[in-house]
């Protein structure tokens, strides 16, 4: 066996900075080592400022390569945190025409029809990755998230999250994941959020010391102190969402599913939540799969996006590639003296205000058009840009399939 045994160290600890230990780099809270590195690693952890923190599960033997929650330790080939293969979900729904006659008919005979909500999706998420999961309403995003978190049983395909089969809803699995669904509440409506947090501590059996530390951290990061004592029903939407997210993360899940975490929130609050998600991921190394209709969320958090439409995978790759692949156009903005000149010969004129002219041209034409503009006109300023990401996504969604 090339790597000997792996050992789990310091689970539940958070490393603020990546830590070099022998041949392993520790960048999240579960660490795997080779046998012969173990002693050095343990003493290094003790010498480090982390020495104050508890080390757990010391020397616990594990199967090689499994359950390693840190990426790239000892160069081991890593198991994906989330793995979908040909995942499918078909709902059977009863159909009925409107009206009394149809209502009576449906008593005798119910017409069933099948709805393919998710239709053969495959992708992997590496541990620690943040991925944006995009698609128009009804594309199958929420259905997929529900299958990933174990609420729904897939109709076909394979699915594993942290090497568990989600729908079996193993308690050990449930302790390591969380699903934040928009407005749906983790919180007890009539009592202060602090009491709901305490309840979650008991539900997830979080050790008192860990709970205290995590709570302090969350309170600081999300600025919850002034909210803790108020009944949840008296909180504003944004305040409630912050508490909701905190409640969902108290048990330090390694896999976080976020369904529209910023929906309905103002721009400041959106930015706040976004920064928090990034920070949580950095501190804990948690894997995050996030859906959002706000492209700002996706741009700020996710290098990689997975786009689905009509239950099928449309795109999986870097956000920048998505833009490249789905836009045949570039936008050229030219600053002129005024809008007098007719520039329709150069490309599609999108707008012109105070001499600031926006042109849309085919990508392949960009260089040629730019050159001509500069040669033909008294151009004060010129910029070439990809169209805004919203526009790209709109175009992607407008496509039936790839």
């Amino acid at each position, binding site marked *: 066996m090339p790597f000997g045994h792996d050992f789990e160290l310091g689970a539940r600890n958070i490393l603020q900075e990546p830590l070099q230990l022998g041949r392993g780099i520790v960048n999240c809270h579960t660490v795997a080592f080779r046998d012969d590195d173990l002693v050095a690693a343990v003493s290094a952890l003790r010498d480090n400022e982390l020495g104050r923190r508890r080390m757990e599960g010391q020397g616990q033997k594990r199967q090689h390569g499994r359950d390693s929650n840190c990426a790239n330790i000892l160069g081991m080939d890593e198991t994906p945190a989330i793995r979908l293969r040909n995942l499918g979900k078909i709902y*059977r729904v009863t159909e009925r025409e409107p009206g009394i006659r149809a209502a009576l008919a449906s008593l005798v005979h119910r017409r069933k029809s099948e709805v393919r909500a998710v239709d053969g999706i495959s992708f992997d998420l590496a541990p620690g990755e943040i991925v944006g999961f995009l698609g128009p309403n009804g594309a199958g995003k929420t259905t997929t998230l529900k299958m990933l978190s174990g609420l729904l049983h897939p109709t076909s395909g394979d699915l594993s999250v942290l090497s568990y089969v989600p729908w079996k809803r193993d308690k050990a699995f449930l302790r390591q994941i969380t699903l934040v669904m928009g407005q749906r509440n983790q919180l*007890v409506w009539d009592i202060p959020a602090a009491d709901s947090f305490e309840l979650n501590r008991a539900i997830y059996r979080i050790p008192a010391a860990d709970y205290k530390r995590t709570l302090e951290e969350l309170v600081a990061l999300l600025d919850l102190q002034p909210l803790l004592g108020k009944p949840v029903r008296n909180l504003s939407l944004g305040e409630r969402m912050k508490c909701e997210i905190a409640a969902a993360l108290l048990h330090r899940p390694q896999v976080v599913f976020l369904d529209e975490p910023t929906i309905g929130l103002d721009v400041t609050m959106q930015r706040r939540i976004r920064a928090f998600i990034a920070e949580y991921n950095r501190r804990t190394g948690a894997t995050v799969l996030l859906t959002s209709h706000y492209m700002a969320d996706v741009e700020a958090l996710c290098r990689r996006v997975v786009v689905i439409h009509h239950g099928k995978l449309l795109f999986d790759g870097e956000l920048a590639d998505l833009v490249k692949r789905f836009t045949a156009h570039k936008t050229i903005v030219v600053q002129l003296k005024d809008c007098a000149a007719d520039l329709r010969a150069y490309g599609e004129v999108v707008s012109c205000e105070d001499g600031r002219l926006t042109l849309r041209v085919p990508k392949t034409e960009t260089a040629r058009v730019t050159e001509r503009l500069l040669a033909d006109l008294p151009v004060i300023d010129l910029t070439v840009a990809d169209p805004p990401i919203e526009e790209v996504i709109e175009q992607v969604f407008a496509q039936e399939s790839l």
Partner: protein
Amino acid sequence: MRGLVDLYVQQLKTGVASMLQYRATLFIWLIGNILEPLIYLVVWSTVSGSSGGSIGGYAAKDFAAYYIVLMLVNQATFTWVMYEFDYRIREGTFSAILLHPVHPIHADIAENLSSKVVSLPIMVAAAAGLSVIFHPALKITLWMAAAFVPALVLAFLVRFLVEWTIALAAFWTTRVTAINQIHFMAVLFFSGQIAPLAVLPYPLRVVATILPFRWTIGFPVELLLGRLSPGQVLTGFAAQAAWLIVAMAILKFAWRASVKNYSAVGA
């Protein structure tokens, strides 16, 4: 086990805190729980008075004792899980509960108990008030009181498990109200609520002995009133234990099937 105790303590705390937010609602619920036995009390007292002073061994004062104790026992074992489940499924709040790494019945039991804690003073006051008005014939001996405690606990557990299992119907149909109605009728007749079982015709008494409802309400009441022989008491405990085991087994099976169905048709 320590984790479970901690969970119950926390659930009780949050439950009591939530209940106190809705004192008015709780009070209205309680009025119902007080009025219903009160009506039967008045009716049966009147009937017994007009038919020679006693029916089935119950005089007016006995009916008073029976229904005052029944009111307390019913309150102690009362649940509303059926409405709760119906609401959870319709509003989609069940998903969050399913994601918890603990069986949801624990939270429900704890919440139920917390409402009992809050309502206890009112119920005791109501019982005292009714005692002043109706002069119940109540002589409680020490051993009856001692046997009453486990009988009440078992009654609570059996009723809770049975009603929680029936509440699972909400997973399968949106017409839960009809099922609830049937169940309430069965409880009314076979638990000793509408009349002490001794007053009922023989065939109904036989059915009541077989069904679980008597063991969840009537049995502890009759036990405390000293109307049961030691043999009958032991039989009652055996019946309660048997129903507890049966209900647990059915619940386990039904719960699995329900969740499976839920996760197939859409959570």
